[in-house]
């Protein structure tokens, strides 16, 4: 789960990490009041779940009150186009006092999958895309794998600051480590972490991602979820325990199991089309669940056809067929439906579909499915 910068900064404060003074603003009528509460110059920052906000025009410095008003009004409500997250509407802005910067650093702790431990990463090249830095000047990035105790001093010393600042950075690193462990975060990142002209060390940006599987033990974190940042259909699907991801193609698909669902998208691609979604209905889906899944699926107006690919193990094909039949009858669907059912109770399932009086294209295997989809 992702959270906004302003939420991450609140967490930072709880862990003793300094952040600049700022005000969150969600309504146009509050802009004037909000700006008057901070000193100028200030920075206006779009609060959306996306990287590269600056490049997309979502982060701007204002050097006067009027200037701040204009910028805030233009950013709040804008459609932010980012290369990382597509188009996002800006529903919240953070108005933050500007800081006199001496040096910009990068600091993060992240779960390192290949090494199965937390990795600590710092760089003197703050404020830039760290993946770009990794490509262009890898020698400027220092990494430490934390296999046992976290002792960041040796790595931070490589940045060459005096003792006072080095200790301040060390304290921040230790706070971040405490945070990542205590809150089950998969990433905590400050880019840039700045050393100010007055020798303070301040987090100008804040990014935290959390392990979805651990949210059950962090109610306070789960409450930070901004549903406006999520696709409404994906949210609806989650309510029914369905794993649905909206994609850009025209062939809807409904599958049991994540691996087979991905393979089904690949099959659609092989047939010269693109999948409209990823949908894993899970192992023990009931016919009601299948019906809900179908409703969400066909809410996509771009659909040309739906491909149902089920390998019944725990999921019984007759339950599936019943749910599909009900959904089609209740929702009056008139696009082609292609069905491939294999496994538990497939004969019973086939009978239900055949006796429904509805039109299905039943295919025996994946190659047949490819041929049928190609002709749509």
């Amino acid at each position, binding site marked *: 789960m992702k959270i906004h910068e302003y939420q991450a900064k609140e967490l930072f404060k709880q862990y003793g990490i300094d952040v600049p003074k700022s005000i969150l603003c969600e309504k146009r009528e509050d802009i004037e009041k909000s700006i008057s509460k901070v000193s100028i110059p200030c920075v206006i920052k779009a609060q959306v779940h996306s990287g590269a906000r600056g490049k997309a025009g979502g982060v701007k410095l204002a050097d006067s009150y009027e200037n701040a008003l204009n910028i805030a009004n233009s950013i709040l409500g804008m459609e932010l186009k980012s290369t*990382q*997250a597509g188009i996002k509407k800006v529903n919240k802005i953070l108005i933050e006092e500007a800081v006199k910067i001496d040096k910009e650093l990068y600091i993060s702790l992240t*779960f390192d*999958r*290949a090494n*199965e*431990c937390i990795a600590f990463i710092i760089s003197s090249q703050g404020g830039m895309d760290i*993946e770009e830095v990794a490509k262009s000047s890898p020698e400027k990035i220092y990494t430490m794998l934390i296999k046992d105790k976290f002792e960041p001093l040796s790595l931070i010393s490589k940045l060459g600051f005096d003792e006072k600042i080095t200790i301040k950075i060390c304290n921040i690193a230790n706070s971040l480590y405490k945070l990542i*462990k205590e809150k*089950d975060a*998969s990433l905590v990142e400050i880019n840039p972490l700045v050393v100010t002209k007055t020798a303070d060390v301040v987090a100008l940006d804040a990014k935290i991602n959390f*392990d*979805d*599987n*651990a949210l*059950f*033990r962090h109610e306070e974190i789960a409450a930070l979820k901004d549903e406006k940042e999520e696709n409404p259909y994906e949210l609806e699907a989650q309510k029914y325990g369905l*794993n649905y*991801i909206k*994609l850009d193609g025209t062939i809807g698909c409904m*599958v*049991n*199991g*994540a*691996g*087979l*669902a*991905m*393979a089904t*998208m*690949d*099959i*659609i*691609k*092989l047939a010269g089309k*693109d*999948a409209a979604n*990823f949908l*894993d209905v899970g*192992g023990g889906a009931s016919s009601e669940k299948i019906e809900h899944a179908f409703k969400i699926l066909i809410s996509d107006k771009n659909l040309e056809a739906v491909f149902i690919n089920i*390998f*019944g*193990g*725990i999921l019984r094909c007759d339950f599936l067929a019943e749910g599909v039949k009900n959904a089609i009858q209740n929702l009056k669907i008139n696009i082609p439906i292609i069905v491939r059912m*294999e*496994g*538990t109770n497939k004969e019973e399932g086939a009978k239900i579909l055949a006796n429904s009086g509805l039109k299905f294209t039943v295919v025996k*295997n*994946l*190659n047949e499915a*490819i041929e049928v989809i190609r002709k749509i």
Partner: protein
Amino acid sequence: MSIFINENTKLIVQGITGKEGSFHAKSCQEYGTKLVGGVTPKKGGTEILDVPVFNSVEEAVAEVKPNTTMIFVPARFAASAIIEAADAGIQLIVCITEGIPVYDMLEAKKAVISNGVRLIGPNCPGLISPEKSKVGIMPSSIHKKGNVGVVSRSGTLTYEAVYQLTQLGIGQSTCIGIGGDPVIGTNFIDVLKAFQDDKETDAICMIGEIGGSAEEEAADFIKQYVTKPVVSFIAGLSAPEGKRMGHAGAIISGGKGTASSKMKALNNAGVLVCKNPADIGITIKNILEKSN
């Protein structure tokens, strides 16, 4: 032979009194697996499926001497269940549970390694050595005894591949789902090594997916160690970057973990990589005929 499980497997099920646990314990028992007991805290002293239920793995070990456990405990307790089994010295721990927090799994894996036992999963369908033993949730009927080893990060996609093989008259030595999570106990390399060393396995079917670098590491290992033919399919060639495709581990991030990178690495290691999942079975059939 087969790998990891066989006629001598003595199984307990942790979480045996739950809906899923009892259903699959029964299915394994019906398949012929020697189910010797189950564990559910506070239910010790009762019986289910004609086997005793114990309060702890330690008690079960003392009484019925299992060498394998299958875990259906809910996600928030599953890592502790793995640690309990590892500390009790169970040699093979198969964890079916999905949704275990990553940092819990790091702790569980430490316990597995320090006790020198094997963990398969979590978030996996388990494993089956056809006609010998089943410790998992796969539909038994699609399997057939034979000489192809199947290893996969997925569940239903594995069933798909196995079904294709069985339809073509090709049986399997052992089929293993290693799980779709970022931190798993047994990886592709462990299984590839076991299949290479197994006399009854003549060819290997390896099914990967987007996310992480396990397939690339497997490709390196195949180059150095595996002489048996390997056929592979990687799911998610059409998956977009930055979206978690169902499995916690199936995500392309920062341009890493793509299907094409994995396919390329495997190709370079001499693996036959199928672009179409419908071709997995027939590709293995052809390769077996060629090598005969």
